């Protein structure tokens, strides 16, 4: 940049509209405000990316990855953090975009080739950030105004966005450090302009509103996973206290199309695959076995979670009964149409070995409600709710 002006900078500026020199005079476009919000968003998006990627690995485990059954609370915490942090990011992102909005109209639009690269990375950063938060909110509200499948699209957008964020950090780390360490007034025009009466909000007031909005949305929704806050989280799409047998439901039996099969007297649970003694068990057979009771959390990918007292037969006991080694991997299949979303799930040997991984037949002291998976469902610690297969009909040992 030393010497004469670059070829880009010799382009004559337009004189109209937002391109006009001095078009933006709000004090809120200060570099220091952008730096503070940028750091907050960088942390929030990194947290969301890590927790989201973890959830992806659990649901689509590569050969080298094994998700442990303990600690039992871990997935509840990581997915609760994923969703609540994403929600709290909304005001911060909008404030950040407002702060840097004049740069959208900056002239000359390009100063050098690296500047071009930096600016090109802004589209995936801005578009991706808005995409992730918009589709995330739509998903927890079960409102899908798009035609793509949410999980793979959200996953792809997350990688694109985090990549653009890394590029942005590379370009702006120095400027951010300068903005937060230097006392230079040119980095902080806010209070000066506000004092002159041109500002509506001071920088401090603006940041207070942004972070206050984040806190407001967080408190208004986080009770769907933090039970003590359930009564004040008035915008949470779930209440962990509300549902059949005091527990929320994600998919009902009627929407899964299993009501007739699940309530039929002909229902049997089969245990097959690599076993010495294939089993065919009625509900009465299951209930007459030595059952275990345990408090296990249902933690949904949508960010809500709730604890129930489940009663059922541990999967490892079922394997022993069928003459299979308790260190086997197991596939649990539902009455749902084969190939339907979440109609089956896998248990690795570590999860099978956990005594709280069981085929439950009762919840909170009563037989399972059909929407909770009657006649039998899988329940296990530290698993995403979509992998707690309901209306189980087959256990396949491998």
């Amino acid at each position, binding site marked *: 940049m030393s010497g004469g002006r670059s070829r880009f900078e010799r382009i004559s500026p337009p004189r109209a509209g937002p391109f006009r020199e001095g078009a*933006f*005079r709000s*004090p809120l*476009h200060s*570099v220091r405000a*952008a730096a503070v919000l940028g750091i907050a968003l960088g942390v929030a998006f990194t947290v969301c990316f890590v927790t989201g990627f973890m959830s992806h690995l659990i649901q689509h485990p590569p050969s080298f990855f094994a998700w442990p059954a303990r600690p039992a609370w871990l997935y509840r915490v990581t997915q609760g953090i994923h969703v609540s942090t994403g*929600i709290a990011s909304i*005001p911060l992102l*909008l404030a950040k975009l*407002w702060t*840097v909005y*004049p740069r*959208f109209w900056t002239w000359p639009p390009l100063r050098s080739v690296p500047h071009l*690269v*930096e600016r090109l*990375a802004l*589209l995936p950063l*801005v578009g991706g950030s*808005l*995409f992730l938060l918009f589709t995330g909110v739509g998903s927890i509200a*079960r409102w899908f105004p*798009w*035609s*793509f*499948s949410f999980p*793979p*699209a959200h996953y*792809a*957008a997350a*990688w*694109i*966005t*985090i*990549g653009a964020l*890394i590029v942005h950090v*590379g*370009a702006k780390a120095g*400027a*951010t450090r*300068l903005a937060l360490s230097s006392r230079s007034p040119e*980095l902080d025009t806010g209070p000066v302009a*506000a004092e002159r*009466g*041109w500002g*509506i909000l001071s920088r401090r007031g*603006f940041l207070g*509103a942004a972070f*206050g909005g984040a806190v407001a*949305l967080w408190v208004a929704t986080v009770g769907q996973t933090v039970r003590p806050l359930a009564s004040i989280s*008035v*915008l949470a*799409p*779930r*209440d962990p206290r*509300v*549902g059949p047998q005091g*527990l929320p*439901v994600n998919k*009902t039996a009627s*929407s899964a199309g299993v009501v007739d099969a699940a309530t039929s007297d002909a229902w049997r649970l089969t245990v097959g695959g690599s076993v010495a003694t294939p089993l065919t068990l009625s509900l009465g057979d299951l209930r007459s076995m030595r059952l275990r009771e345990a408090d296990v959390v249902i933690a949904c990918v949508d960010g809500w979670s709730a604890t129930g007292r489940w009663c059922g037969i541990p999967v490892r006991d079922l394997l022993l009964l069928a003459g299979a080694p308790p260190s086997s991997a197991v596939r649990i299949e539902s009455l749902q149409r084969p190939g339907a979303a979440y109609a089956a799930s896998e248990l690795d040997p570590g999860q099978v070995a956990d005594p709280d991984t069981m085929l439950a037949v009762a919840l909170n002291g009563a037989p399972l409600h059909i929407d909770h998976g009657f006649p039998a469902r899988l329940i296990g610690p530290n698993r995403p709710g979509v992998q707690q297969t309901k209306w189980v009909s087959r256990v396949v040992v491998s």
Partner: protein
Amino acid sequence: MSGALPPPFEDPSEHTSRYGPAFWSCLAIGGGCMAFGLISLFSRAAATDPPNFAVFFVGLALIHDLVLAPVVIGVAWLLRSVTPRGIRGVLFGALAVSAVVAGFSIPFVAGWGIQPDNPSFLPRDYGLGLLVVLAWVWITAVAIGLARVWVRRGGRR
């Protein structure tokens, strides 16, 4: 200087961006992540529907930059014209937070995703919930405004 225009917006970071080894290293790593995201997108095109994905990915950014931000500028300009200077900051802050909370709650209040056979989903009165949150936002704003008045009067004594 009273009444003089403040300096127009100029982002000093424009002049402090450094395109040294750190930038190019981040570009390599970030570019790799973006490439992986695009491969994920197109390798599962039947599920991700890239054209529809692109509509939302680009469309949301355009809606923000060309619709939402200009509307906020207009509202701010209007507010600045019609409100006394002393309460502008608190008023605009409360309005901005209210708008974000209201925008977030739209799909819940409207119940667009409601599942008639699943009363455990959207079990609350979300219109009432929104009013409760807005009430807290404005109570907080009034409290901040009164605190400012109190501090200002205290300073004069």
